[in-house]
């Protein structure tokens, strides 16, 4: 194994296009082999930029003017792929595969390590970072701390000489962060690696490093040396710039005086009385991954929670305990599958709104119209960027007040005062998506309370924030509470827990035990993706081939017979459930296509039922094979087969496969964007024009999310040698076996049946 390399940065200047001033200007820095350095500085000081420069990845996800030189062990950083390992802040941002073993092997594939060598190296490095679960387990099942250890393993397997960590513990709770730091300390010591860590929470890292380098707001080195000495000299000024310096007391919540909102819901319920109460609530989540049946998991079971006016509740518990789910159920953002959520009578639409009907009075909050819900509930999701709905910062804050018809002038005064206190006034006319993470977080808080809601829900609002934004978030929550709102916060942050009036601890509900008997596998699950795809697509000539309903019935019969055969699951064990239901479920939308074609044929063919049914059968013959096989196609295997069997170019195939792993994330993002619009009072409840505009707006949000994920993943992948991987090896085999041949033959048999029908049946 290699030991640490020297890092040398000389006269480095980097100006991203579109910025008038460089982020880094004429920077010089030398790091000795095996030296361990903590890089600190206020937000926007260029810490992460410097890290990317050392990794040789500045131009991977951004464009700009770069000059100067960076060398690692005397060579360009990416000269040896993987020699500089990089771990990013967001756990899971760099995941490329569907199993943890495959994910770790990614770098090895890029440098063409033979398949036989991969698995022992992967297992060894998984053990080294303390991931003891089987290598075929899905990255989606890992906790935040485990995900960061997986990212570390992905870097370590390449045997780097320099390890770069970009805020690796910012999104983790204190105990988990300590666990990750311990693994880092152990690995770095054992391998003698050069280490550079960027963090704005310094405690915990100080014992692990032997040098601290402090950058100022303009990207210049202002202090460099022994951590204790540097902090003794500069600790106070660093803390004032927002850095969490050990020994400096936590910040006080920012004092915020809110002008009363016009027609606010806050204060309608008397101080200390229940605003909303969740009773015996159960929430279930459906997770869906391509190529697997969707699975329902129990997020919350039998939970109770009261939110009281003028009081705050901190919801705590380990990750996966259902904190967010209970909170969103309380706010009417998800429908509980059992139990009840009851708002106080003065807050129901019948009392508060203008559409007084008994139905509205009795309806649970998850059925309320968008503006009715917005009047009462505010929700700040964990990703502040999702909650942006306005074109400018001021627009965003005023969205809900104006949607509720509040007085424009009074609402505007309240909004401006909020923006001024939170240090956003100078950004009022800027597009909110241009803001930094901390600024977006403060904006999300301002927009949540702008209209005076009676219930304020915030999901981990302080995670990863510097001291300044922390104080702003705590200040907004306190101000909302003081004007009579009930505040509910999910958190791991001891500072937030201390400020809360009440702490509720959740525990993960017991999942229903899986059936111990092994499930038999349908025949089709033994078939590779290429054969499945070929079988489903070789029926394409059928519509042109068949010209009567009798021929259609015959071919459809052959298809159904072969399909049922493929769904058979011989052998011993428990019968798999829902095989036919799955196929019929996939055919339900096809019914639309069939009806459309049948209608137009009926219209054209002299309103003849035979003509119409012939047309319908032709389309059915086209779609039934798809419905049977599509559930058995695994995107990752498809990628392996496309690259190895069909010799498609490796890099596009890998990029596509990595993106397909994230379909679930986009599904979640879509739901979150819709929930945000609903709780902000801008959800289109009716009307095709409004819905069309909403679809475009939400698609835009999805695309922004897509671009963000793409740039983070590009960094992670290029750090693992993907940039030059036009030829690579593959950790997944792509065999062609008897079941594949039989499946392809079945597809051809259907076409043959079509030809036979055409020749023999009228």
């Amino acid at each position, binding site marked *: 194994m290699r030991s640490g390399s020297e890092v040398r940065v000389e006269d480095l200047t980097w100006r991203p296009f*579109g910025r008038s001033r460089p982020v880094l200007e004429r920077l010089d820095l030398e790091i000795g082999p095996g030296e361990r350095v903590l890089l600190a500085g206020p937000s926007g000081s260029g810490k992460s930029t410097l890290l990317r420069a050392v990794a040789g990845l500045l131009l991977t996800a951004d464009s700009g003017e770069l000059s100067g030189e960076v060398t690692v062990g005397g060579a360009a950083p990416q000269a040896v792929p993987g020699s500089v390992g990089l771990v990013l802040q967001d756990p899971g941002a760099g995941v490329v595969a569907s199993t943890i073993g495959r994910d770790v092997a990614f770098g090895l594939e890029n440098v063409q390590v033979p398949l036989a060598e991969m698995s022992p190296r992967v297992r060894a490095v998984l053990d080294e970072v303390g991931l003891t679960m089987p290598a075929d387990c899905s990255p989606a099942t890992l906790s935040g701390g485990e995900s960061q250890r997986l990212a570390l393993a992905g870097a370590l397997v390449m045997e780097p000489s320099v390890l770069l960590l970009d805020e690796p513990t910012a999104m983790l709770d204190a105990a988990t962060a300590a666990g990750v730091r311990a693994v880092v300390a152990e690995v770095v010591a054992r391998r003698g690696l050069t280490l550079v860590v960027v963090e704005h929470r310094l405690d915990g890292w100080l014992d692990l490093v032997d040098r601290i380098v402090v950058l100022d707001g303009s990207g210049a080195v202002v202090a460099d040396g022994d951590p204790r000495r540097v902090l003794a000299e500069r600790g106070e000024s660093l803390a004032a710039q927002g850095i969490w310096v050990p020994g400096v007391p936590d910040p006080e919540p920012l004092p915020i005086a809110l002008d009363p909102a016009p027609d606010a819901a806050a204060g309608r319920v008397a101080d200390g009385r229940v605003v909303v109460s969740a009773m015996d609530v159960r929430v279930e989540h459906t997770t869906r991954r391509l190529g697997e049946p969707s699975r329902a998991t129990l997020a919350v079971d039998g939970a109770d929670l009261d939110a009281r006016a003028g009081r705050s509740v901190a919801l705590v518990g380990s990750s996966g305990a259902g904190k967010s789910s209970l909170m969103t159920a309380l706010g009417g953002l998800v429908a509980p599958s059992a139990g009840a959520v009851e708002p106080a009578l003065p807050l129901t639409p019948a009392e508060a709104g203008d559409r007084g009907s008994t139905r509205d009075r009795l309806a649970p909050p998850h059925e309320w119209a968008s503006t009715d819900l917005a009047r009462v509930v505010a929700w700040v999701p964990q990703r502040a960027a999702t909650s942006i709905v306005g074109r400018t910062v001021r627009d965003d804050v005023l969205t809900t007040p104006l949607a509720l018809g509040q007085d424009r002038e009074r609402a505007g005064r309240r909004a401006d005062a909020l923006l001024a206190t939170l240090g956003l006034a100078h950004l009022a006319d800027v597009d909110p998506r241009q803001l930094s993470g901390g600024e977006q977080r403060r904006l999300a808080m301002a927009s949540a309370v702008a209209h005076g809601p009676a219930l304020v829900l915030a999901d981990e609002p302080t995670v990863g924030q510097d001291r300044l934004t922390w104080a702003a978030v705590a200040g907004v929550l306190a101000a909302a509470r003081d004007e009579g709102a009930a505040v509910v916060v999910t958190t791991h942050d001891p500072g937030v827990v201390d400020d809360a009036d009440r702490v509720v601890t959740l525990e993960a509900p017991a999942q229903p035990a899986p059936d111990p008997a092994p499930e038999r596998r349908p025949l089709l699950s033994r078939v590779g993706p290429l054969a499945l795809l070929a079988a489903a697509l070789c029926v394409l000539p059928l*519509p042109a081939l068949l010209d009567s309903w009798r021929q259609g019935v015959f071919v459809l019969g052959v298809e159904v017979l072969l399909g049922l055969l493929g769904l058979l699951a011989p052998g011993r064990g428990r019968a798999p459930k829902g095989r036919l239901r799955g196929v019929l479920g996939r055919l339900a939308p096809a019914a639309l296509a069939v009806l459309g074609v049948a209608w137009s044929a009926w219209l054209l063919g002299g309103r003849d039922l035979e003509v119409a049914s012939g047309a319908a059968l032709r389309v059915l013959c086209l779609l039934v094979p798809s419905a049977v096989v599509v559930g058995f196609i695994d995107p990752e295997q498809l990628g392996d087969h496309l690259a190895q069997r069909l010799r498609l170019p490796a890099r596009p195939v890998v990029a*596509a496969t990595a993106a397909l792993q994230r379909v679930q994330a*986009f599904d979640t993002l879509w739901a979150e964007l819709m929930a945000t619009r609903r709780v902000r009072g801008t959800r289109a409840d009716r009307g095709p024009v409004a819905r069309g505009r909403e679809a475009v707006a939400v698609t835009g949000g999805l695309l922004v999310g897509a671009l963000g994920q*793409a740039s983070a993943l590009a960094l992670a992948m290029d750090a693992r040698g993907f940039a030059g991987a036009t030829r690579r090896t593959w950790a997944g085999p792509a065999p062609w076996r008897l079941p594949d041949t039989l499946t392809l033959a079945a597809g051809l048999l259907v076409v043959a049946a079509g030809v036979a029908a055409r020749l023999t049946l009228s």
Partner: protein
Amino acid sequence: MTSTITASGPLTRWRTIDLLTCAFLGVAFGVAYWAWGLVYAAPSAAVSAGFPPLAALFSWPWLVAGIVGMLIIRRPGAAVFTELLAAVVSALIGTQWGLTTLVSGLVQGLGVELGFAAFGYAVYRWAPLLLGGFLGGAFEAVYEWYSYWTDWGWDYKVAYLLLLGASVAVLGSLLSVALTRGLASVGALNPFPPGQEVREQRAV
């Protein structure tokens, strides 16, 4: 589109971020398409009940993925890659057209691609947009003639082709340009040519 900036380096040398951006745009559009597919059927059926080729007026959004991919990445293959991946995702999630959606994605992407290829991948203004949009729509229409509308006479078939081509060329291009500009203006396209165009406009 007033200026035309092409991608950095040799056009055929895709960077990792180019590949991933196309792939993720494809996935995002695939999810959006799946959701659009749930709502578009009823109005489409209502409008086209009397004259079936009018269904074309509701089909143009399916081509937006490829056009947006090409407008952002500006490299050969961007339209096919993005459109095909959007089709793969919506097919795997489950659309009314099953795996045959892949064929649609391929021919739609090819059509759009040809429009830009005709201008040597050097022009990203209205001319290639109109040509590519029309070809994409036309290719899809021809594919549908043989898979879905086998009973139609030539009058209907040609009307459908012209309607679909024209609506993609005009409406699809408009939406694609709007989405691309929106993304560029919020700084999401900095590593790509449209981001550079925005910066140059601001620099003046």
